[in-house]
């Protein structure tokens, strides 16, 4: 009886081991297929966009202003970075202050939790809704018109949650003892922020900025409702529309001329290359740290 029991146990054990191995292999294979599919799709998009853009790129397109059916995309390239820069101006200071508030031990826990919840919700708000809000409130209610300020503010709403979360994580990575040491040496909150938090989290802050910039450079929906489009560069911060690359991609491809399609492909290529470069730079910076 003992032998039979031991045999049964051994068989059960082997069955269980072999079932686990099969499950493990199936799960691995599925993961591999999903990952492989994603990589293939990504590389296909990358190659397609680069190929289409490189085929049609000319010096004239890169160096002249245009209107999505004629001329070039220089106004859209410059306008994109002006909008992104303006978005950063509006989103970086509140992100830094918000992250400092959240990590400060003296802060009210309820307010910190509410801030986190608010940023999580903000991340999931569709960009078209942010655009509509920007249009109704900034463009119409506050008479900003389609402009750099309205576009920058609309972009900043999208940048803020990313920046806040990444900066908060960077601050939290600073050893707690160093913060306490600074306070124990007689530093006040402002000195602790300027001498400990900011210098030590600068790499994290920079990578957060690059990520937020790369995401927002590819946005269209908020800008359609807030920045409009301009055949040249904006002449001021308010009531002067701004061109941007995603608009050229969106409009150019819908127009019936081959040249418009060329402009769309070139714009798409510039966007993909810029965003890839920014992501690679941020990864390099983080790795160097």
């Amino acid at each position, binding site marked *: 009886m003992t032998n039979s029991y031991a045999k049964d146990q051994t068989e059960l054990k082997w069955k269980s081991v072999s079932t686990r191995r099969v499950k493990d292999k199936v799960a691995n294979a599925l993961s591999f297929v999903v990952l492989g599919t994603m990589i293939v799709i990504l590389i296909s998009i990358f190659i397609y966009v680069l190929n289409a853009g490189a085929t049609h790129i000319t010096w004239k397109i890169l160096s002249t202003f245009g209107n999505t059916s004629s001329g070039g995309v220089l106004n859209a390239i410059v306008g994109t970075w002006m909008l992104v820069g303006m978005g950063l101006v509006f989103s970086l200071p509140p992100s830094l202050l918000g992250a400092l508030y959240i990590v400060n031990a*003296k802060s009210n826990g309820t307010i910190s939790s509410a801030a986190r919840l608010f940023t999580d919700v903000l991340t999931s708000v569709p960009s078209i809704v942010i655009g509509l809000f920007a249009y109704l409130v900034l463009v119409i209610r506050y008479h900003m018109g389609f402009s750099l300020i309205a576009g920058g503010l609309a972009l900043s709403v999208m940048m803020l949650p990313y920046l806040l979360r990444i900066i908060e994580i960077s601050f939290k990575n600073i050893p707690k*003892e*160093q913060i306490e*040491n*600074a306070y124990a*040496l007689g530093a006040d909150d402002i000195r602790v922020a300027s*001498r400990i938090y900011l210098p030590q989290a600068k790499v994290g802050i920079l990578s957060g900025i690059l990520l937020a910039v790369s995401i927002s450079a590819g946005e269209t929906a908020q800008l359609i409702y807030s920045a409009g489009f301009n055949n040249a560069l904006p002449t001021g911060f308010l009531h002067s529309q701004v061109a941007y690359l995603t608009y050229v991609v969106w409009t150019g491809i819908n127009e019936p001329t081959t040249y418009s399609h060329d402009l769309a492909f070139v714009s798409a290529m510039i966007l993909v290359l810029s965003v890839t470069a920014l992501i690679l730079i941020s990864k390099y910076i983080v790795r160097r740290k």
Partner: protein
Amino acid sequence: MEEKSVEKVEKVIEIEKLKIKTKNKVILDRVDLNIFRNNVNTIVGPSGSGKSTLLRSLNRLLEMDPAMEVTGDILFEKRNIRDFDPVELRREIGLVFQKPNPFPMSVYDNVAFGLRIQGKKLKREEMDKVIVQALEDADLYEELGGNLKQMGTSLSGGQQQRLCIARALVLRPKVLMLDEPTSALDPIAKGKIVDLIRSLKQKYTVVLVTHDMNLTRKVSDYTNLIYDGKFVAKGTGTEFFESKIEEVKDFLSEAD
């Protein structure tokens, strides 16, 4: 046992009925304790008995934690610490933490940190002199061979601890609090800290928190036992170790 021995020594800090608690737990319960000028005042007790919490309450660092509720009085030079600006108070009562934690900057900048955050504009030669003096007081200058450009984080554990002491000393505090300064050190580094503590009391009032009774025997002038959040006994030098109080005897037998 303590009254006769200390009646003529000046009290720098007087703690009266200090109670520290969180929502669910009493950490210190009605503690009365005095810190005497130019002496090594040691607070001993088992881990978790509230020694470090007591230190953090003396320079109001405990206020950083909103969960802590503090009642009772702490007088620093006869003035309630609640009447001090916390930033000013922390410059008067320096604190060196258990784990040496230099800032990721040069030895020079580490020591200069406290002066710079105070906005003190010293001339370069004057600043150099003050920093060298603090490092000499912390018995570190000679050992570094004058190389103050090296990173503070690249020093050995014992050197880092003495760098943290120098960083506190440069502000010329009246009281220097050391929280378990030898707990993370090897015997040689420990020996240097013992010598350093002995020399520091010439210029400073030292408050030492430790559960290392060997260290206490070697350096302590006044020893206070905190047991389970309550102040139990105090005594000068050898008196403490010969105490007949049950908790002291229990603690000493466990600690040894």
